[in-house]
Structure formats: structure tokens, C-alpha cells
């Protein structure tokens, strides 16, 4: 118990903060913050697996989150038969061409000795493959995008349940991580950071501009949900009865029947939104808890000790016969897959996929601040970091507004400085996050909840 005292204290403070939001702002806002906090926590856990366990710096979180989001579209949206007829076959052939390219390159790399000739072979295969792809996919893409462009204009998905897409998102992100890891993992730490960031940018720009895949910047809206819709709930008898029971005291005070009906209707509308968010929260919480259990078990298993050994002294671990390249690749894939799951969760929560919104600021750097602030190498710390920083990110504007009003209260309402400051209140979130990161880095470099090494 004592071992976890700081965890319990920190988590209670965090929970109290969210409850305060519920009391002072509204429960609906508090629950959406809570849901987003949990999504951030999952992303942070993914980054923490890479950075905290193995010391790999991955600034490409944005790309994996976007792939996770893409998975939701590809899995849950109903297929568009006209688009498949127009160009589905060609796109399938393209996939075969890509597979053929990959296998022939692998074959060449294996069979021919390292030489100039081999390089020319590989380059030749890539160029021929690209030209083939262009020729096959060009007309097909045009046809697909011409199918009802205002509503579809893409191939659509598989029409499967949306929860399944979380797993697929993990696999997609893991697959990308395999490729990226093969390319970039040999680089020095800060090179690796830059390379992963730029590769993530490439991934996002492909998702943004390949309209046949997921409509690109035209966005996909109205995605399926694993929880009931508010509109359906509002007409379900058991739900209305439930709300009536909960608020019976309040309702009994109202005499007139018409007025009572009116109040009840409003209450049901409010309650339905809260109920939906609670359901989401339950789903997310189960993911967070499951991941926490798995990661904790992994961290204190022989495998976790091996990872820490590699992180702390690569040469020594290598001398002990550990395969560092393989382990790094594995942990890179695992961490990225977790980020992919988080990306899918986020898109499911929003109900829409907006490739244009994936920007490095929000999806890479803020997540990294969460990892550093929460505590590298400590899963409880990662979750806390996700909660705390996201809370600050959302609530920074109101806090800043409050502070500005406090400090400029002696100035008249029309003072130019005061108006300017109030207008720029939303940007104080960057200031708070930045200063928070700098302070933590300086005075508590291991984060709020530092790594704990249990001696067995």
C-alpha cells in the first residue's frame, strides 16, 4: 500500500479536478474531458513503452494515431458498391503489384551480393513498379472519386462492427512501425526523432490526399458507434423511466402535468448525452485497465528487465547475448500499435475522421509532454501525464481568462491591452504546457511519478 501512496494521492487529485469541472461547469464537459484524458493516456502509454522501457524516441505518434483513425473508416463504414465496381478491381491489382514489388526486392536483396548492380536492380524494380501503379490506379482513382463525390467518392469500408477496428488500428500502426523501424531504428536518438516525425508527416499527407481511400480532407462523418445514439435513447421507455426515477424528487415538486412533461424531456435530453459518454468512458476505461495490467506485467517480467538493461547499457546487454536490433524493433512495433489503438478510439469517440486535423503540435509534441511530465518508464505516471496534461490543455483557456481578468481588473473594460489579452486567452495553453515541461525537465526530470525498480 505504502509503495503506491504517491500514485493514489496523484490520482485522487486528478479525479477531484475532473469532479470540480463537473460541479462548476457541467457533467457533460467533465465526462468528455475524462474520455479524452483516457485516450491521451493510451497514447502516452504507447509512447512510454518506447521511450520509458527502451529509450527509443518516436516523434511519429501523429502518423500512428492517424492510421488508427483510418482503420475505423476502413473497418466500420459500409462499402460503396458503385465505387468498387468503378475501380475496385484495379485497386486490388495495385495491392498485388505492391506485394510483388516488395517480394522481388527482398529476393534481389537476398540473392545478389551487396554491389552497385544490386542497387540498380532495386531501383529498377521500384521505378517499373511505380509506373505500373500509376497506369493501373490512375483511371481507377478518377472513377472512384467520381462516384457521388459529395457523399462518398471513396471505396468505403468493410461494414464491420466498430470495436473490431480498434484491433485493426493496432495492427495497421504496428505494420507501419515495422517498416519505419527497419528504416530508421539504426539512427542516433535525435536523428531518429526527426526521421520518425518526417515519416509520420508523409503518412498523414498520403491519408490527406488519397481521396479514394478515406475521402481525404473531405472528411468522413457519421461513423458507427459502439454505444447507443442519443436520439434513440430519448425515445426508449426504460431510459425515460430511469431518468424519471432519478429525478422523482425534483419532478414531484412540479404541479402542472404539461410543465412536468417539459422538464422531463429536457432532463432526458441531458441524461442521454451523459449516458452515451458514460458508456464510452466504460469502454475506454476497460482498455486503459487492460493495457495497464499487461504493461505492468511486462515491465516486471524478465522481458522488462531485459529491455531496461538494453536501455541503460546497450553494449553490456549486447555482450550478454541480447539481440538489440530485434528487441528495439519489437518494442517499436508494440508501442506504435498501442498508439494506433488510441487513434482508433479517438475517431470512434468523435464519430468523424478528419485527416486535416492531424498536426504534429497536437499529436506528437503534446503527447511527448505527457510522457515527460507523467514519468518516463512508469505506466501509472504515463496515465497520470495523459490525464493531467490533457486537462491543462482543455482548461488552460478558462484558467488564463480568469487570471487575466484578475490581474487587469484595475484597468477599464475598454483598455486595449486588456482586450488584446482576453482575445488571446486560448494561446495561453501553449505557454502553460511549455513552462510546465521546462519546469518538470529542470526540477523533476524523472516526471511526477518516477520510474520504480522493484528488486526481486
Amino acid at each position, binding site marked *: 500500500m505504502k509503495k503506491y501512496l504517491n500514485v493514489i494521492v496523484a490520482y485522487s487529485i486528478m479525479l477531484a479536478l475532473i469532479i470540480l469541472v463537473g460541479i462548476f461547469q457541467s457533467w457533460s464537459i467533465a465526462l468528455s474531458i475524462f474520455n479524452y484524458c483516457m485516450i491521451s493516456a493510451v497514447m502516452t502509454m504507447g509512447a512510454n513503452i518506447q521511450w520509458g522501457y527502451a529509450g527509443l*524516441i518516436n516523434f511519429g505518434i501523429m502518423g500512428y494515431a492517424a492510421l488508427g483513425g483510418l482503420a475505423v473508416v476502413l473497418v466500420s463504414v459500409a462499402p460503396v458498391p458503385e465505387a468498387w465496381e468503378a475501380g475496385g478491381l484495379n485497386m486490388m491489382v495495385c495491392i498485388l503489384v505492391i506485394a510483388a514489388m516488395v517480394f522481388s526486392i527482398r529476393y534481389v536483396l537476398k540473392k545478389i551480393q551487396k554491389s552497385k548492380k544490386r542497387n540498380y536492380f532495386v531501383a529498377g524494380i521500384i521505378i517499373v513498379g511505380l509506373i505500373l501503379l500509376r497506369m493501373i490506379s490512375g483511371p481507377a482513382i478518377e472513377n472512384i472519386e467520381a462516384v457521388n463525390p459529395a457523399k462518398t467518392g471513396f471505396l468505403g469500408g468493410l461494414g464491420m462492427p466498430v470495436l473490431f477496428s480498434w484491433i485493426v488500428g493496432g495492427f495497421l500502426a504496428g505494420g507501419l512501425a515495422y517498416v519505419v523501424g527497419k*528504416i*530508421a531504428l*539504426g*539512427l542516433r*536518438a*535525435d*536523428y531518429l*526523432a*526527426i*526521421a520518425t*516525425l*518526417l*515519416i509520420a*508527416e*508523409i503518412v498523414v*499527407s*498520403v491519408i*490527406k*490526399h488519397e481521396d479514394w481511400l478515406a475521402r481525404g480532407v473531405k472528411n468522413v462523418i457519421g461513423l458507427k458507434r459502439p454505444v447507443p445514439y442519443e436520439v434513440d435513447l430519448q425515445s426508449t421507455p426504460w431510459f425515460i423511466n430511469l431518468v424519471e426515477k432519478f429525478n422523482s424528487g425534483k419532478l414531484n415538486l412540479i404541479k402542472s402535468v404539461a410543465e412536468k412533461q417539459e422538464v422531463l424531456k429536457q432532463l432526458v435530453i441531458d441524461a442521454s448525452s451523459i449516458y452515451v459518454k458514460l458508456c464510452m468512458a466504460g469502454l475506454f476505461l476497460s482498455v486503459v485497465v487492460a493495457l495497464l495490467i499487461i504493461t505492468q506485467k511486462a515491465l516486471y517480467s524478465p522481458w522488462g528487465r531485459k529491455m531496461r538493461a538494453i536501455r541503460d547499457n546497450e553494449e553490456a546487454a549486447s555482450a550478454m547475448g541480447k539481440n538489440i536490433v530485434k528487441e528495439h524493433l519489437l518494442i517499436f512495433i508494440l508501442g506504435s500499435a498501442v498508439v494506433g489503438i488510441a487513434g482508433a478510439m479517438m475517431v470512434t469517440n468523435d464519430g468523424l475522421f478528419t485527416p486535416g486535423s492531424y498536426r*504534429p*503540435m497536437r499529436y506528437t*509534441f503534446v503527447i*511527448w*509532454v505527457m510522457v*515527460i511530465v507523467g514519468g518516463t518508464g512508469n505506466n501509472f505516471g504515463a496515465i497520470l501525464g495523459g490525464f493531467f496534461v490533457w486537462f491543462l490543455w482543455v482548461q488552460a483557456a478558462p484558467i488564463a481568462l480568469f487570471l487575466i481578468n484578475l490581474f487587469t481588473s484595475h484597468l477599464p473594460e475598454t483598455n486595449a491591452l486588456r482586450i488584446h*489579452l482576453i*482575445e*488571446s486567452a486560448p*494561446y*495561453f*495553453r*501553449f*505557454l502553460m*504546457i*511549455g*513552462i510546465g*515541461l*521546462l519546469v518538470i*525537465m*529542470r526540477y523533476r*526530470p524523472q516526471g511526477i511519478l518516477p520510474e520504480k525498480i522493484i528488486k526481486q
Partner: protein
Amino acid sequence: MDFLNALILLLNYTIIPALTYGSQLALGAIFVTLIYGVLRFANFATGDMMSFGTMFAVLLTYYFQSLGIGLGVLPTALLTIPFAIVMMILYMLTIDKFVFSYYRIKKSPPVQLAMVSVGVMFVTQAIIRIIIGPFDRRFLDGEKFILKAMEFKEMTGLNEGLTIKSTQLITIIVTLIVVSIMFWFLNKTKTGTSMRAYSDNEDLALLSGIDPKRVVMLTWIIAGVLATIGGVLYGLDKSYKPFVYFNNMLPIFAAAIVGGIGNPFGAFLGGYVVAFGEIFITYAYKKFFTYILPESLAPDSLMQLLSTDYKFAVSFSILVIVLLFRPSGIFKGKIL
């Protein structure tokens, strides 16, 4: 005649814009590489530092315009650059004193310094947005064009026009002047040599009596000059928007690494490699081929390797290819 037309076409749509964009990237890339070479970390606040210097130039331009001070045909912003540089250097030295110096003295690993620079990035971004706001601003005044397409057509009688914007010429000339002064300083003066020595081997440099504080200060000063000039030139040529500057950090990084990080000359050329790569690969060559090929062979398609949407992606792909085949960059990195 057709050949000349084709040449002018290329010059107008690819070579001149690429030279301009390349110069802007080159200044930023040298800034990244200097910090990397002397202070030994990847500075993620690059884009925002450039934006910070530019912000002062923009504000001062507005102020000078209201006072009626100008340079006639040249943009007023050129007049404000020295003041902006001073503000920028002050800001950088303050940040160094309160943030970076602590980790330098502690000899923290480069990754930690890079994370600290992310913090600096957040703070700088906030300051910029609070002072000037996130909006798009144009601050170019004076003559816009040196050569207009119509004039060129009348002058030469060719079908294709050549447009040279004044900002393009200013960018290229100013870059060349600044970069040559910087290389002269690094290679010919004693202080420059001491900087290179410090970057090459810190301990040996300390043994031979080089003052590290002075070297670090000089680095920030040169970096401030480069960042501000690069930022202002970019802003004059396109427009000033804080978010765009943050995004420019990525191609700048690509340029610095492609050239061989830590090597200023490599970074200088890397800027052009990235810019030319981006523009050549995303340019539609249809018209070009219609000019040089006989009519029967004229292409139907756009003859574009990649759509312009992938402009940024091209520079990153160049970087990935370089990292795969020559991890130390085209020009061997890490000798300043």
C-alpha cells in the same frame, strides 16, 4: 525558338522559385546545423525562433510605415531587419541563460536538450501568438516585380513570359551575401576557427584556452542573424503566418540532415537539394514537352510525377532515402 521557350518556361516555374525557396531553407538549415554542431542538440524550436524574429520585423515594418519611413522601391522590412536581429539575439541569449545553459553545464544527453527545446518551442509559440496573433499577414511594400511576363514577351518576342518578383531577387542576393560573410568568418577569422575547434572536439578546445561561454554566445548571435534574415525573407516572399513557420521546421531539418548535419556548407547546399527536389518532382511538365518534342509525340497527360499536394512529402522522402544510403548526409556531417 521552341527550345528557348521551353527553357524560359522551366526557368520561370521551377528554377527561379526553387532558388528562392532553397535560399530560405538554406538559411534555416545552417541555423539548425550550427546549433547542432556547437551546442550538440536538435533544436525543435527552429521554426518558431525564425517566426519570432520575423514577428519583430513585421511589427517594426508597420511602425515605420506609420512614420512614413521607407526604402522607396525596396521593402521597408529590409530596414527593420537589424532591429529585429537585435531583439532576436536578446531573446535567444535569455533563453540560453535560463534554459539551455543548465543542461549544457550538466552535460545532459542530446535527447534531453532536444526535449527542452520542445518546451522552448511551446513557449515561443505562445509568446508569438499572444503578441501578434495567429493570422496571415503580408508586409511587403515597394516594387513587387522586377520583370513582368508581358514586358518580357514584348522584349524578346517569345511565347513564354518570365516573371521575376523583387522578393525573389532580394532573397537570393541577401542569402548569398549573408552566407559568404558567415563562411568567411568561420574559416578565416580566429574567432571562427575557435568555434570550429570547439565543435570538433570540446575538450581539446578547452585545453587550448578557448572560452566556451564566448563560443556559445557567438553561436547564438550568428544563429539569431541567420534565423531572422531567413524568416523575414520567407515572410516577404510568401506571407507571415506563425503556423506555417512551425511547419517549415520540417523541410529545414530535412535540408540540414541531407547536407550532413553539423556541416554548414552541406546545410547550405541541402537547402537547394530539398527545394529543387520538391519543385522538380511536383511540376507538371506537359507544356515543357509540348515545346521540345515534335507535335506527334506531344503528351496528353500532365506529365507530373507527383501531385503538388505531396510537396512536403517529397522533401521528407529525400531525407529518408539519404538516411538509408548515406546516414551522414551527402557531405560528411559533423565537421563545422
